[in-house]
């Protein structure tokens, strides 16, 4: 019995197509029952996320035959009638196992090395296992894939560092402040990026969010969403005495905060550290404020450059990860080969005995 994979991912197909083939979690058990009942697969797992839809199947069919049947199954299950070309990829052993391990380790993800996919893969496996659609073969392979993902995470830098602007800002805050628990965050200008950054800080324990926006209604809506407080745009400077982190993303054509304005505010703050995240273009904060003691100013380019450096580092780790995967997949393939040889020998031997019995 060999393991094959068929699927669509962000590498091969646009979101319009992926969403056509997506399986709702509630419908996966029925789809698996149907798949096994059709005789295509003895064991199967369906992974359906926003970036990929994949079927992992243990089958006795020849790979080419299994791929054709699985493709047809996918099309029928989603009432898709148009022809499919390279949007769907098919992988037989050993590539199918390598692929599963790479997915588990986040090496095939849109954000290289992300960990969310491992959780999604575990859920997909849990659903299949819970409904008894997996057996010895897939159980062993999936368990090993989860184990390898953990190993790769702890022994390489593939998941090290933040690769988005919001998470880099959070990481910076954690390098400056001993804890985010008591930190107050001021959001000046309620843009999408500042909202994401504030959300990320809140998720890491920031105490509260204060929002100041030219549109006070928008500020109030955002503050309500964060369980924070909205202030009039002209009053944001008055909050500087209390806050620890300020995220600025207004559309002002000039600097809204410069050294002359910040200097007295820092004295009032008794020189407590202040992290300024300027994600506006044109910039809201005069770069000269970074020369003030205890002020740490990062603009969008600084944050993006850190994220890019992290990504570069992660890319450099791919080779190490693939070496680990190759090492861990090898025994699985060898075991399967041994089982197959044993099955073939016993099949041949039973053929021989039946031939002998039929020809006395």
């Amino acid at each position, binding site marked *: 019995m060999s393991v094959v994979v068929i699927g669509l991912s962000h590498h091969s197909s646009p979101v319009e197509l992926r969403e056509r083939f997506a399986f709702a979690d509630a419908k996966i058990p029925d789809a698996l029952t149907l798949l096994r009942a059709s005789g295509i697969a003895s064991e199967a797992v369906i992974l359906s996320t926003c970036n990929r839809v994949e079927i992992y199947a243990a089958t006795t069919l020849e790979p080419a035959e299994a791929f054709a049947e699985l493709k047809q199954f996918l099309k029928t299950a989603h009432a898709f009638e148009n022809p499919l070309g390279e949007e769907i990829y098919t992988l037989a052993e050993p590539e199918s196992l390598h692929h599963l391990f790479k997915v588990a380790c986040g090496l095939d993800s849109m954000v290289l090395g992300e960990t969310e996919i491992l959780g999604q893969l575990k859920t997909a496996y849990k659903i299949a296992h819970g409904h008894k659609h997996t057996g010895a073969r897939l159980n062993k392979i999936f368990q090993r894939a989860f184990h390898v993902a953990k190993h790769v995470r702890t022994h390489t830098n593939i998941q090290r560092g933040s690769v988005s602007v919001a998470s*880099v800002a959070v990481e910076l805050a954690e390098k400056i402040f001993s804890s985010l628990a008591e930190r107050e965050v001021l959001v000046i200008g309620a843009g999408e990026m500042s909202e994401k950054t504030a959300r990320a800080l809140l998720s890491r324990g920031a105490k509260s969010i204060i929002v100041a926006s030219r549109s006070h209604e928008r500020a109030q809506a955002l503050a309500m969403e964060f369980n924070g407080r909205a202030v009039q745009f002209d009053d944001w400077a008055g909050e500087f005495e209390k806050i620890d982190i300020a995220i600025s993303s207004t559309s002002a054509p000039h600097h809204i905060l410069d050294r002359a304005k910040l200097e007295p505010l820092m004295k009032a703050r008794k020189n407590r550290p202040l992290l300024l995240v300027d994600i506006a273009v044109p910039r809201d904060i005069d770069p000269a404020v970074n020369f003030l003691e*205890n002020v740490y100013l990062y603009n969008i380019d600084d944050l993006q450059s850190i994220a890019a450096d992290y990504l570069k580092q992660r890319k450099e780790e791919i080779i190490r990860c693939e070496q680990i995967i190759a090492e861990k997949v090898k025994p699985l393939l060898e075991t399967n080969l041994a089982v197959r040889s044993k099955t073939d020998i016993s099949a041949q031997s039973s053929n021989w005995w039946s031939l002998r019995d039929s020809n006395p």
Partner: protein
Amino acid sequence: MNWFTDRHFFLLAVAFYGLATVYSVFLWRKGFRRDDHVNYFLILAGVALHTLAMFKRGLTLHSCPVNNLYEATTFLLWALGLACLVYSLLPRFQFLCAFTAPLLFTVGVFALMPSLDVHPLPGAKPDFSNWLRSLHAATILQSYGAFGLAAVAAGMFLMQQHDLKFHKLRAMLSLMPSIQRLELITFRLVAVGFVLLTIGLAAGSQLPRKEGAPYFSDAKVVWSALLWLIYLESLVAHQFFGRTSRRFAVGVIVAFVFLLLTFWVTNLYSGLHHP
């Protein structure tokens, strides 16, 4: 094994501090990214041998081994090494060992100079068999150890702050504590050192001295009082008058460098400590 003296044990300890220093350079070049404990165990081995050396010397003297410059320096280093081992157990503080190792090694090599380990003539040496004398010497040397470790933490603070200020990737990649935490640890170590120094000086003032000789006529006493004032000013200015973290850290380092450079000189000019 009689030929294997306490100085040999100390020499071995310094060798371990040296190895830790070499490993520190490696960690520094790697940007303090590797989360390992090699340095910790090297310093642990060094401190164990160091303790053995001091214990052996103490047994020979039947008192706290702080009778000459060699013994005083080894005691200071021992306090520093021990405090470093304790503080390194705090989360994200494992690199404290990497920053302390060069200090332990450099001062350790200096302490090994034979001229520092002079055995005064009987009767001429300060008598430390009295518990007050031992308390005086031990607390003062422990305070120097705390000031030394505070200077190391202040150095870590300045490095991390510089990296964060100038957007160096090393600030993000290194497994160092946050600068606020480093500042807090520096402050606490200075405070602990200050309390120990105060106890030591208070104990010293109660010790018998020559008839009619005022306490503050001795060079070492004046120097210690100056040191006490320097650290007091540093703590008060930072805590109550808004001295910036950076200036506080620089001040702590400068004060400890001053301590290291002048400790031996004032000892030589002190009638009480170098009769």
